[in-house]
Structure formats: C-alpha cells, structure tokens
C-alpha cells in the first residue's frame, strides 16, 4: 500500500510528515470501536427519552402508567428521581434541566426517561406517555423574541473602537441592510450516546461520545450529587463531533448515569436520529443588521452592526458563540471606527450550541456581506474592495477588540490564489458567459479568512498529557484531547515519536480518560493539537531529560552527544536500541512516566472592557468559487473551487488537507442546502437526512484544487510552528455564497446587491432572481 503524498504536499520535508490516520485500517475494516460497539456488561439496560410536544407550556398532568406497564420496561425516571441537581448546564447557569419539571421550554425538551431491557422496548414505551399541557406564548424567532422584550440568555458583548457616529456621518457614502444567516445541524454520523456502568460506593464509569469528558464527569457528579472523583469518563473516539458533542452529550450521560446507579445495572442511551436532531442544539442562526460608511474607493470608514442570535431556551455556550461572531465580523479588514454588538436572544427553541467556527462563520459572513454591498454600490469587483480594506500599513492593524494583528499574511494568500486560480481571466469569462446565456448564469468570488486561535475564555487554554514508557520500550500515550476524526491522536503521536526518535508503531494511543488526565478543556476551538501536542511534548521532554541525565551519569558523556534517533539512543560513540536503553534506565530506577502540561502564553481578555489579546495567533486562507445557476428554478452547481490555506508548518499535511477539504464542504452545506425548518408550533420539520440535506458526493465542486501554503510558519512558538486547522477552512465556503450572489446579480446587470440570505437553497436563489428582475424592471 503506497500512501498518497505527492498531491498533498510539494516539499520532501512536508511529505515526510504524512501519515494516515492512526485508525485508518480499523475504520475501513469496521473494526474501529465506537461507543455502541463496546461489549456491554451482562444485563445492560437501555434508556430512552420522552420528549415534550409543546414549544412553551406548563405541564398540568403526566400519566406514565402505560409507559411503566409496557413490555420490557424496568422503570421510569422523571425530575424527582434525580439524586443531585436537575441540571446539565455547561456554564453553571442552572438553566438546563435534565427533565422538565413544570414548564416546557421547547418542542422536544426531555420530560422523562424510560428504562427497559432492550432499546426497542424502551423506545416503544416512551411513546405511551400521556402528558397534558397548558400552552404559553412561545417566541420562536429572533424577531418574536425582540417583540416580546428581547430577553437575553447571557450578557451581551460590545466591541467598540473610534467614534462611530461621527465617522458614519462624515463618510462620503452610507448604506444599511440586514442578513438572515441560517443555523446548521451537526449531523455527526454517529449520534449521541452514553453507556454508564455502576461501581462500588458512588462510583460510575461512563463511556460517551463526547468532545469534553471532563465536563461529562463534572455534570454526572453534579446530577448524581457525588464528587468528581467518583466519576470516570472514557472516550476512545467519536463518529464525528463538529462542536455538537462539546456540551450536548451532558444530558445523555446524566440520564445513563442516574439510571445505572438507580437500577445497579449498566445503562446505555442512544436516541434515534430524529430525537437527536430535535433534542440537541445546533449552530446558532443569526440576524445581522449593519450600517456602513465608506468612500468612493470602497474603503470602509465606519461599521455599526448588531448580531442577534436565536439562542434557544438556555445559555449553553451562546455567550462565547455570540462573542466569537463579533470577533470575526472584521475578518481580514481594518475598520477605522467600529461598533459591534451581540444580542443573544432567548427563544422557545432548542438551546443552540457550539459548531465548527463557534459563531465566527456567522460574524464573518456578516462582515463579508458588507464588503459585497460596497462593491455593488460602487460597481467594483468585490475582490478589489477586499484588497483595499485589508489589515496592513501604518495604523491599520488594530482589531475591534484592540488586539494588534502582527502575523498578517492575507494579502500574500489572496494574491497567490488570484494568480494560481486564474481569477481575473475567469471573472472575465464569467461576465462574458452571462451576456450570452439567457437562462443559465455564472458567478465567481474570492473570499479570504482570518480566524483567531485560542479559547476566548482564557483559562481553557491549558492541557495535560500522560506518558508511560514500559520496560519493553513501548510507549503508552494519553492526553486530554478527544479524537473525532480530526487526526488529533496521530498528530500527537507523531510529536512523541519524533521526541524519542522511535517509529510511530512504538506508541499506543489510548482512550481519553478523566482518570488519566484531569480537568481538561473541550477538544474544541481548533485547539486540540496546539494544546495537547505541547502537553505531550512536555511529558516526553521530562522523561527524556531523566534519560539524558541517566546517560550522562552512567556513560560520562556530555549532553550534546546524546540523541534519540532511528529507534536508538546514541550515547557518545555507543548506540543502544531504544528498548534496551529503557530497560537500563528502569534497572537504574529512573522514573519512566510523566504528566505533561501546557498553557498558552501571552493571551488576555477583559470582556467587560472589550479589550485584550484573546488570540495567540491567526490562521489564514482564501478560496475562489465558481458556480452556475438556473434562473428558471434556482438550481445550481459549484463548478470549481480553488483554495490556498495556511496551516503553518504542518504536523501532518494529509490530515490538514483533509480538514481543509472537509471543512470547506461542510461550510458549503451550511450556506447552500442545509436548511433547518421549524413550523409555527415550534416543531423542527427537518429532523432526519430525508429532510435535512447535507452535501453528498455530487455536490463537491466539479473541480476542486486545494493547496496548503507550505511557506507559512507560525510566528508563535507553537508545536513545531504549526497552526490550528479544524475551524478556519469552514469559512472558505463564504466564497460559494458570494459566487451564487454574483450569478443572481447578473440578471440586474450587477447593479443591485442581491442580499442573498443563507442558506441559499434553490428556492432562495429563484426568489432573489425574480426579485432582482422586478427591481430592475422598475428602474
């Protein structure tokens, strides 16, 4: 088997870092074990949730007798059966009950759980509940929430710099508008699942599909009313996470754990796809309202914008999500005077949550809409407007949150891509095509990305690792990050292998466990390899230092004559097989185990003041997308996409390229076919793949060229000077929406900004085409 390297990376140095995903062979053989595949203990019971069927109501009666009496049922749990706190709120807001007590706050809110001998029995029994409600007024949208007084789930944020009113007033031109930005279901292929196994005393062990084992541990302890040291959470891998398993697994783990302790049997809970989509949070949908002042060259003088999010019934992560929207509204552009406000609105819908980009995409697309507005107002190529507003030059490097951009490579990325993708000639060809084609129209757009790396909650920027070397030289690697397909484990293993100069197969990557590395942060914010790679390197360095000291002492050689390479330890003129050297160290009673730790330096954030340097560095990228639309139906195809993306000095170019390709397609889905539809009763109508349409193979661009910027190195001393890659490429897909917009604009001679909302379904495209045709006719 020859691992594909040449099309992924150009330089031999980069090619040498390519290694397939550590579980690749298991993935393709069906042998990779997910939570539902774990051999369950004898007598394992199965839990299933009963969900409310009102958006906002008081529960007036609950008759669960038929549920209890159903075949196979062992018991039922409601709020009163919870020994500790009836709360799975991730932020401590205490606003997210396991089970609704008296008031239902969204259609699909869990009210009870039924425990049975099989999942099928539990699932069937759950439908037998008779619950009576007294309806209360329900606010289902941003507009409705505002009309009801605009109750917020968490403190809003304002980022402000300069004199906005004055700059708007003095700008030669001004315009305002608004944009609806749709949400997105994670659609991880493996749904939420937890398996809880009771132990002695207060102990419980939970196997969960989660990005945040430490939080599951904390929440399970909280719900059971036991200390965290009674709870162990293990995660080998997830079948996809994307942010949907940062906090949303809490509920399922809590129910499984409560049931496991109550019945003293192992309990597994796995909702079906529909319930998973109905009862768990999604990407926040936003409404962005903006007013921009600019000049005839398209340079922005001032921007005043409000980003209102439909947060759902509880806070969850809506605070940091809406914060991050503001942090990314500037994207790559300097805003001389700026005011950005968030409005995290409470609604009677499922509580929205983390999703790849974490609000950043919504903020960034709002900012890019402003650029597009300016371009159409002035009759300029939006790319020209982009270039004129880039950060860079004297006094033009300060963000709206008062952090100075010091690592800006946006212009180089844009210009290189413009050249390699042949943007200018292709834009001419598109314009030419549109003059000749009456029904089919094309569009092309180049959009950049600048994404801030670090948790904006500064304390999350820490990580731990645990490394053991056994006497046979094999290495046990554990760290606080979780594997959801992003290749974190292989990257960290590569770091450790390089530290000891041993082959990768010397290292056993082990399941994440709260018993091995405590108090971890979620594997989120693209931070996995930055944090855990450094923590593992720190653990390796500790052991290595002890081994080096041992070598110096034993063989009387200077430090600089000791090296770990090619599976051997070189000590002066002698070479030892790694395992033999390890055995020598063991015999000499050298500690061969270490706990590593890392915290990101040089970051700070004062949220109240709206000032600081929340990001350690930025990751950059750009994409050119070309599309074709049918102006009779609104159908479209993405003809070609070219991407140039910055991952710093890649730890594993194959893994990184996969993140860029996959992230782009996921972003494209968000902006095109992935439409979440709720009805006027607050019921989600798109709760399965039959109605919720993520991209399939034929949606991938008909030509797709993705290149990593091999010249880029992180200016910060990150692990091997690499950069985070999980989230930034997601926003490259903004180019697809803007290309679609240009194709629509062609029907009105590019004189009207189409103001295309997202997702741009065929319906939205057709409606925009017909709207522009009508407006043009009135001109």
């Amino acid at each position, binding site marked *: 088997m020859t691992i594909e390297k040449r099309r992924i990376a150009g330089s031999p140095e980069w090619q040498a870092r390519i290694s397939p*995903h550590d579980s690749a062979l298991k993935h393709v053989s*069906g042998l990779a074990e997910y939570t539902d595949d774990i*051999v369950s203990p004898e007598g394992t019971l199965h839990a299933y949730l009963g969900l409310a069927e009102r958006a906002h109501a008081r529960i007036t009666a609950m008759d669960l007798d038929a549920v209890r009496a159903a075949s196979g049922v062992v018991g039922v749990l409601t709020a009163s059966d919870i020994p500790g706190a009836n709360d799975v709120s991730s932020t401590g807001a205490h606003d997210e009950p396991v089970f609704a007590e008296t008031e239902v706050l969204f259609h699909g809110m869990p009210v009870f759980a039924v425990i049975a001998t099989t999942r099928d029995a539990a699932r069937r029994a759950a439908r037998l509940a008779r619950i009576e409600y007294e309806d209360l007024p329900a606010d289902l949208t941003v507009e409705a929430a505002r009309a009801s007084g605009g109750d917020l789930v968490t403190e809003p944020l304002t980022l402000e710099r300069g004199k906005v009113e004055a700059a708007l007033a003095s700008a030669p031109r001004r315009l305002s508008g608004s944009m609806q930005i749709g949400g997105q279901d994670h659609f991880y292929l493996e749904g939420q699942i937890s398996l809880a196994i009771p132990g002695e005393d207060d102990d419980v062990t939970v196997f969960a599909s989660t990005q945040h084992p430490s939080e599951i541990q904390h929440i399970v302890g909280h719900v059971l009313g036991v200390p965290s040291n009674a709870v162990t959470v293990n995660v080998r891998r997830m079948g996809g*996470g994307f942010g949907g398993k940062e906090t949303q697994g809490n509920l399922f783990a809590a129910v499984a754990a409560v049931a496991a302790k109550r019945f003293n049997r192992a309990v597994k809970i796995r909702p079906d796809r529909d319930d998973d989509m109905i009862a768990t949070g999604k990407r926040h949908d936003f409404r962005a309202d903006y007013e921009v002042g600019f000049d005839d060259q398209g340079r922005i003088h001032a921007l005043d914008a409000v980003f209102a999010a439909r947060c759902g019934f509880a806070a969850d992560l809506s605070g940091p999500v809406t914060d991050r929207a503001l942090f990314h509204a500037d994207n790559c552009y300097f805003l001389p005077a700026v005011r950005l406000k968030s409005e995290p609105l409470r609604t009677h819908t499922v509580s929205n949550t983390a999703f790849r980009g974490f609000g950043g995409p919504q903020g960034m697309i709002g900012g890019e809409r402003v650029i597009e507005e300016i371009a159409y107002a002035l009759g300029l190529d939006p790319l020209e407007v982009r270039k004129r507003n880039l950060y860079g030059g004297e006094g033009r490097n300060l963000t709206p949150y008062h952090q100075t951009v010091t690592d800006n490579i946006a212009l180089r990325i844009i210009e290189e891509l413009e050249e390699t993708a042949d943007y200018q000639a292709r834009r001419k060809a598109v314009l030419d095509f549109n003059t000749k084609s009456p029904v089919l129209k094309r569009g092309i757009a180049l959009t950049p990305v600048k994404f801030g790396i670090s948790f904006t909650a500064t304390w999350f920027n820490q990580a731990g690792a645990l490394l053991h070397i056994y006497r046979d030289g094999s290495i046990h690697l554990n760290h606080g990050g979780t594997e959801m397909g992003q290749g974190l484990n292989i990257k960290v293993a590569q770091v450790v292998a390089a530290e000891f100069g041993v082959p990768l197969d010397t290292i056993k990557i082990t399941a994440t466990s709260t018993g091995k590395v405590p108090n971890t942060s979620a594997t989120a914010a693209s931070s996995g390899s930055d944090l855990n790679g450094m923590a593992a390197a720190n653990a390796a360095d500790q052991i290595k230092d002890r081994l080096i000291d041992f070598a110096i002492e034993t063989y009387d050689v200077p430090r600089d004559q000791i090296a770990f390479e090619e599976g051997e330890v070189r000590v002066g003129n002698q070479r030892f097989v790694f395992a033999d050297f390890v055995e020598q160290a063991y015999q000499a009673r050298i500690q061969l185990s270490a706990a590593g730790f890392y915290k990101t330096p040089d970051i700070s954030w004062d949220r109240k003041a709206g000032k600081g340097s929340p990001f350690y560095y930025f990751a950059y990228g750009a994409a050119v997308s070309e599309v074709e639309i049918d102006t*009779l139906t609104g159908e479209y195809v993405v003809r070609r996409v070219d991407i140039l993306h910055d991952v710093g000095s890649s730890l594993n170019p194959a893994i990184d390229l996969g993140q860029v390709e*996959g*992230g*782009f397609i996921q972003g494209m889905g968000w902006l095109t076919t992935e439409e979440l539809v709720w009805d006027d009763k607050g019921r989600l109508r798109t709760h399965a793949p039959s109605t919720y349409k993520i991209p399939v193979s034929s949606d991938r661009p008909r030509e797709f060229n*993705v290149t990593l910027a091999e010249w880029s190195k992180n200016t910060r001393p990150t692990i091997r000077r690499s950069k985070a890659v999980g989230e930034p490429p997601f926003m490259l897909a903004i180019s697809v929406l803007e290309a679609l917009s240009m194709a629509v604009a062609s029907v009105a001679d590019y004189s009207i900004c189409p103001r295309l909302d997202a997702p741009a379904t065929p*319906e939205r495209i057709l409606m925009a085409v017909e709207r522009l045709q009508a407006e043009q006719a009135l001109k």
Partner: protein
Amino acid sequence: MASGDTIRFLLNGETVEHRPGAAHETLLDFLRLNRRLTGTKEGCAEGDCGACTVLIGRLSRGELVYETVNACIRFLASVHGCHVVTIEHLRGADGGPHPVQQAMVAHHGAQCGFCTPGIVMSLYGLLMQNPAPTDIDIDRALQGNLCRCTGYAPIARAAKAAGAEMTKDDPLASERAAVTEALAGMQTDETLSVETPEGTIHIPANADGLADILADNPDATIVAGATDVGLWVTKFMRDISPVVFIGHLDDLKMIEETGDAITFGAGVSYTDAAPVLARRIPALTELWDRIGGTQIRNMGTIGGNIANGSPIGDTPPPFIALGAELTLRKGGDRRTIPLESFFIDYGKQDRSPGEFVESITVPVPAEGTHLAAYKISKRFDEDISALLGAFALALAGDGTVEDIRIAFGGMAATPKRASSVEDALRGKPWTEASVMAALSAFETDFTPISDMRASADYRMRSAKNLLRRLWHETEGTPVRIDRGVA
C-alpha cells in the same frame, strides 16, 4: 405451503438458520445485536445515510447478483435465500485488507470512520461491476452514503485507485460457484410462512402464491423493497404483521418489451429497469439516476413507488405523461386502468383489500414526441422531490401543439395532470407567447402546499418555469446545468 419458525440465508461465510424475533426485525439489528457484526453502523435508520450498507447476493433467474442495500430498513426475513455480505467479510487475496480498503487508507478517505464501512461496501459494489469508474459513476454510487468529515474528494480518489487493483480472487469472486449452489439449494417453490413471537411472515415462492396469501390475508402488508415500509417500522414503530415479502419474486420482475411499450412487473427494481429505460426512453435517465441513492434503487420497485400512493413519488409523473396503464390483480382476476386514475386522493388509491399491483405498461414515446422529466429538489441527488414536472409534447408539422400531456408530483395531494395547462396549449403554436399565456392555467390546476421542502409560492413559480424550460429546450437554448467533472 411450508410453515416453520426459521428462515435460512448465508451470512458472510456461514449458513444461518434463524428464528426471527418479530415480523419487523431488521437486518441491521440482527447483524449488530444478534451477531455482533458491529462494522455495519446505524446512522439514520431510514435508508438515507448509508452507514449500514451491506451487499446482498441473490439468484436472479439462476444468476448470482450482488447489490448494495440499506440494512437498516431491510427486513431480516426478506433475506431468506440470499447471501448477506458485511464489511467483516471483505478481504484481499492474501487475507489482508481488500484493495478498496487499502485505497481508502492510502488516499486518506476516512476521518471519523463511522460512515466508512458503508462507503467501502458501496465502492466495492460499484467496482465489482465497473472497475474503471468516472467521477460521475462514483458520485452515483455514493449518492446514498453521507460523509460529514471528508467532503468526499479523497473517497473519490480512493475509488479510482482501487479500481485498478481489483482482483478476481477476492472472496465473493472465489466463492461464487459455492454461493450460487448454496443459494440454489435454499430456493423452494412453496410459500414459507413463519410465526414469530411478534407477528406472522409470509414468503411466497411466486406471484400465484402471493395471490393466495392475499386472498387469505387481504390486509397483509405487502413489502417489496421496504424503502417505504421500512420507515413505518424504524420511524413510526408500526405493526406490519402479517407481512408478505415479494421483493424476490422473479415473476414480478419481468420486463416485456414490444414495439411501442414496455411492461414492468411490479417487482422490477429501479436498478433493473434502468438499462431498458436508457435504451427505450433515454429522456428519463437523469431522473432515474436521481431516485434515492444506489441502495434505494437496488431495493425499491416501480410497483412500490406507485402502490404506496405518495404525491411525491418520482415515477408516476413521467409515466402518467406517457399514458401508462396499471394492471392490478386479486386472486386470479386482473384489471387494467390508466395510471392516473389509480391515485384518488391523499393516502387513497384504487386498490381493494387483497388486490396487488402486478405490472405497469409504459408506452414508448413516438418519434418526434419531446419528453422531459424535471425534478426539483433542495439537493440535486438523493432528495425527495419538491416538485417534479413531466411533459410529453407532440408538435404537428405546422409547429402547433398537436398534443401535450403534463403531469406533476409535489403540486397536489396526488400525482396529477395539468389539464388546464394542456388545454391552454393544445392546438396553439409552440411559441414563447403561447407558453407565457398558458402559465396562469397552472393556478387552475394546482394549489400546492408549503412544507419543509419548498413554499407554495416557489412550487408554483418553478412549476410554471419548468414549462418555460421545456420551451427553451425545444428551441435549443442551454437550460441544463453542466454537472460534469473537470
């Protein structure tokens, strides 16, 4: 009639005699819960995501054919007499990974890995038939497999690379003769009726046996491909007992061609119909390739698509536009009706208890007839139609509309003719002016609804525009988006 409590089939390398726990037991639950073959995953339990893709080998008139199916909605008892092949059975000639698996590793085609076994099985199914697939072939083979991580590009690269490495001595090739013989030994000419702890299963051996079963059990649930009934169970937990499985009946899989028509037995799958349609009615090829995904087309039948009476089935509109006729059978009695009259109202069809759809006869359009079937959906592939317009246009020598038959799905409670639009066009010159003048007649014919797939407004606007598209197309103006791969 044979009765018993077990069904028999081959599972990977072994013969299984199994007593179904329920009439509605699914193949996926059997694999995962009963056999702990956990490589096959549940992603959606509705035949959409493909994580549960397995191969089913069956004898089709004596010849062993393997096709990918969705194990999640395939009822276990319907694999009686078949060979079920899961990811665990796949290996290369040397016992190591199969070339498809190797290529998926080499090209970084898996990230989280959860969809991967299903993808591998779909690619295997493709490459068995076509070792040199184009990107379009790969897209088609993967319509029914969702991957949320990779964006598919590396999977397509793997598929291309694997084709070149496909060997003749992979397990299914080397076992072929033995499997054929084993399956032949399982076939009987008697109906098998199985009593389970939860419900009764009937597996007839031929259409006559089916007629007898329905005579005795007029309210039995008839299951061919299970692409609809499967969801009654997995989504709605409905009781389908007594159930009669007919997907294997060769005498309902007959395709008869005459000079001016094709008769499809009700059990002809979309996949089996595809080559005949491509040859005789090529205007339906694009639509046909967009029905479900490959697994669904392998399972689902034309008869089922009609018999379930859905207003958004993809086959009724074009078949109505072509003037197809439906033959229903009850016991030994048969009657033939125009297809459009079968659809009475939402959820109501012209089928009496104990009666079953036996065949459909589709006229081949006469030379000079312009046939078009336009499916509009949120996503191009593997989506349910928001609306589907089918047009059969015949022009007279002087350029006037001699006849036009228009049928739409998704615009009413049933698949329905656009009679007023037809009337507005018949006898008129086939010009843009005539087309524009006829558009308002759509509002006489249809009052579409708004739902999660489209608004009523969009349905109406795009329905009208599909007639405009037809006109543009007859004028030679490009109206079809080029979806080819560079």
